[in-house]
């Protein structure tokens, strides 16, 4: 059982590293993007990464209350994306 626990720890660490890679790639695209909609897409992805990261943090440090911010971030990012999209649509240009 000690082997299983060690394997669990290694996999968990790999998940954290992978999530960091995803966040870094998304941040790089956020800085690289030319248009507003691409930035909105990158922010949406970043907030999804935050949801996943809050879930992972709940699992890693064992604090049950940390799952609530994940739901809050998902809600806020949905509202923000809809607002940005309707703004871009009403404005007519995307630059």
């Amino acid at each position, binding site marked *: 059982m000690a082997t299983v626990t060690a394997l669990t720890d290694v996999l968990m660490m790999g998940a954290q590293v992978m999530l960091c890679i995803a966040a870094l790639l998304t941040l790089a695209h956020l800085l690289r993007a030319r248009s507003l909609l691409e930035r909105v897409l990158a922010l949406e992805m970043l907030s999804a990464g935050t949801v996943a990261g809050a879930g992972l943090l709940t699992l890693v440090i064992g604090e049950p209350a940390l799952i609530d911010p994940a*739901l809050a971030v998902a809600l806020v990012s949905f509202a923000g994306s809809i607002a940005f999209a309707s703004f871009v649509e009403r404005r007519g240009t995307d630059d």
Partner: protein
Amino acid sequence: MTELLDLLAAVLALTGAFFLALAGVALFRMPDIYGRLSATSKAVTFGASTMLIATAIGMHDPGVSWRAAAGIVFLLLTSPIVGHVLGRAAWRSGVPPHVVQRDPFPTEPESMPPHEMWDARNS
């Protein structure tokens, strides 16, 4: 038994994080915003949902599991809406889609392989 459940949760967490990283790669590989929306919305939904499933399994707490399930349902409901709305905003504000035009009936055989032609057109 608890150790095996934790191992399952770790495998699911690694899968979710891998798919989120894959969506980050898709941001760089796709040529325009329509391709990026199409690739990332699925990968992000799957990755975040898998991560929340891992949380629900690994915490051994019914309250956390219910909230994670609510988060998964919310993600599954809202992520297609966001993808559709962003794509519609891009289309209506006149973002041109990236189209590669090739002659469907070439009179002479093409001189270079398709990936080199792609590079020549897009450089």
